[in-house]
C-alpha cells in the first residue's frame, strides 16, 4: 500500500470543565489512505466530532500525534496551519449554521480560493457549483434563501473547491431528509471518485455508512472499540457494543423479526473513566476481564475488536 495521507497516533483530547476533566477522546490511533472513505460511528458524545476537530486542528490535542501528508501538524500554530488547510477540509454537521448567514454563495465559495492564492475567477466557482449540482442563479443567494439540501451542497462545494486530498465530513446528512440524504451520499461518492479524495465520514447513522464507506471505526466513550471493513464489521460485529448498536436500528421490513440485544442503562459520564471496557456496566456478557484494559483482538484481515468475546481461542488450541 501507499503512504497513508493521515496518521493519527494515540490521540487524546481532554477538556477541563471547572474541576472536572472531560475525557472526550482517549488514545485513538488509525490511518487513512488516499482515496479511501473511512467512517467513524458511535453514539452521541463518543468523541467523534472532537477527534475530527483535533485532526483539522480546530482543537489542540492533549496528547498524541497527527501526521498529515507526512507533516506532523500536532503542534502547529494557527498561522502554521494555514497552508495545510488547503489540503485538509471539513464539511460541518449543521447545514444551517455552517454557512455565514451574511455571505452570498459566491463569496462563500470565492473566499477559500483567495485565501490560498488560487485562481478565483468565475469559471472556478461555477465549476464547483456544477460539481455539486447547483446552478449559476444560486450564486447571489444568501444561505437563508437556500433549502437544507442546497445549503449542504454549498458547504460541500466550499470544502472541495481547493481540491483537498482529505475531507472530514461530520454528519453531513444528519439534518437531511431520507431522499435528500441519499442524493447527498451519491454526490459524495461521485466527488470522491472524481477528485480522488480521502474521506473521514462521521456519522451515527449506520445505514448511510454502509452505503458510502470502505472502512469503519466504531467509537465508544472516546475509544475505538472495533474497526474494519464495513461489510466485516456490520455483518459480523464482534464487540458487544457494535452488536447492540446494529441491533438497535429498526429495519424497515415488517417481515423480519429480530432478536434485539438491549443494553441496560445509559452511557456513563465522560468525566470519570473506568479502566477497561467502556461497556462494562451495561454489557450482558461482562466479566472480570473487562475491568482491565483490553487489547485489540484481530478478527480477520483488517478487522479488530477490543472485546473479550473477540479473543481468538488460540490458547485452547495449544492445550
Amino acid at each position: 500500500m501507499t503512504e497513508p495521507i493521515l496518521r493519527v497516533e494515540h490521540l487524546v483530547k481532554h477538556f477541563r470543565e471547572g474541576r472536572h476533566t472531560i475525557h472526550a477522546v482517549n488514545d485513538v490511533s488509525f490511518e487513512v489512505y488516499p482515496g479511501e472513505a473511512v467512517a467513524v460511528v458511535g453514539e452521541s458524545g463518543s468523541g467523534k466530532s472532537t477527534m475530527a476537530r483535533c485532526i483539522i486542528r480546530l482543537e489542540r490535542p492533549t496528547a498524541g500525534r497527527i501526521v498529515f501528508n507526512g507533516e506532523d501538524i500536532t503542534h502547529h500554530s494557527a498561522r502554521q496551519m494555514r497552508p495545510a488547510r488547503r489540503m485538509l477540509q471539513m464539511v460541518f454537521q449543521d447545514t444551517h449554521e455552517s454557512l455565514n448567514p451574511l455571505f452570498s454563495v459566491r463569496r462563500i465559495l470565492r473566499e477559500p480560493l483567495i485565501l490560498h492564492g488560487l485562481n478565483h475567477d468565475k469559471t472556478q466557482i461555477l465549476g464547483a457549483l456544477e460539481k455539486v449540482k447547483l446552478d449559476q442563479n444560486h450564486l447571489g443567494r444568501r444561505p437563508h434563501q437556500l433549502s437544507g439540501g442546497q445549503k449542504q451542497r454549498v458547504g460541500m462545494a466550499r470544502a472541495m473547491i481547493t481540491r483537498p486530498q482529505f475531507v472530514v465530513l461530520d454528519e453531513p446528512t444528519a439534518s437531511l431528509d431520507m431522499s435528500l440524504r441519499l442524493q447527498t451520499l451519491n454526490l459524495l461518492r461521485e466527488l470522491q471518485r472524481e477528485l480522488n479524495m480521502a474521506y473521514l465520514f462521521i456519522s451515527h447513522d449506520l445505514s448511510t455508512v454502509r452505503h458510502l464507506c470502505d472502512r469503519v471505526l466504531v467509537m465508544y466513550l472516546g475509544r475505538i472499540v472495533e474497526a474494519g471493513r464495513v461489510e466485516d464489521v456490520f455483518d459480523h460485529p464482534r464487540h458487544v457494543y457494535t452488536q447492540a448498536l446494529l441491533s438497535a436500528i429498526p429495519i424497515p421490513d415488517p417481515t423480519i423479526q429480530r432478536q434485539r440485544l438491549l443494553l441496560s442503562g445509559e452511557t456513563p459520564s465522560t468525566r470519570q473513566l473506568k479502566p477497561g471496557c467502556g461497556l462494562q456496566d451495561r454489557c450482558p456478557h461482562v466479566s472480570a476481564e473487562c475491568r482491565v484494559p483490553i487489547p485489540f483482538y484481530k478478527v480477520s484481515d483488517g478487522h479488530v475488536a477490543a472485546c473479550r468475546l473477540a479473543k481468538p481461542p488460540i490458547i485452547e488450541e495449544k492445550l
Partner: protein
Amino acid sequence: MDMTEPLLALENLSVTITDNRGQSKPILQGVSFEIYPNEVMGLVGESGSGKSMTALAIMGLLPRRAKPQSGHIWFNGHDLLTLSKREWYAVRGSQLAMIFQNPRAALNPLMRVGQQVARVVRLHQSLKKRAAYEKALDLLQQVGIPDSQTRARAYPHQLSGGMAQRVLIAMMLACQPRLLIADEPTTGLDVTIQAQIFELIKTIQAEFGTTLLLITHDLGVVSEVCQRVAVMQDGKIQEVATVGELFAHPQHPYTQHLMNTLLRVDRPTNSRA
C-alpha cells in the same frame, strides 16, 4: 384489526397558517384518517409534511397563527374543533395527551421531576398531595426509572434524554388518556436508548391498552412498532394501510419513492456497486 367504532376520526381537516407578511398558506389539506381503540397508528412523512401540525390540531394546541379552515375531528362523538377554551381543559390530559421530541426541554426546568408528575396525578386522579406523590413514584418505577425515589428529586437537567422521556411517559400515564400522541419521541436520542424507549412504549401499550398515534419519519420504526400507518406529503394524506400491506405493496407513488430511498444497515444497498 378491531374494526369497531374509531376512537378518533379526522375528516377532511384543512389548516392554514398566516405568516409574518400576512400571507396565508395551507399546511394541512383535507386530512382524513381514523384511529381505532387500542391500536398503534403510525404517521410518516418527510420533514415539513404536516405531521406535527396534525397532532397539534388534534390536541387543540395549534400555534396562534394557524387556523383550522374546514373539516372535523371527531372524538367521542364530539367535534373537537367546536370545543370552547374551557371545554378543552377537560379534554386535554384526561382524554388526549401528547409527548414531544426533545424531552428535556419538555419538562419544567425549575421543578423536580417527581413534583411534575405528581401534580399531573393530582389533577387527573384527585388524590391528596402525599398520595399523589406516592403514585408518581410508582409511575416512575413503571416506566423503568431505577431508584425512582432519588430520581424523583432530580431536576430535568440532571437527567439524560432517555430518562427525561421516561418521565414524560410517566406523566402521560398519570393522565390515563384514551389517546396518546407521540411526536417523534426518540429524535435526538441515541440509537441504543431509542430502542429502549420503543420497547417501553410497546410494553406500556400492551399493558394499558392505550391507543397510540406515533409520528415519525423513520419507516424502520413504523415497521417495528405500528400496526397501521398513514403516509403524509405536503399536508395531504397519501395512503393509509396496515404496515404489512404498506411494505409489501406500496400503492401511492410517493410511498414507493419513500421505499426506494431506504438505506438498510442489514445489507448493502442495491445502488452501491
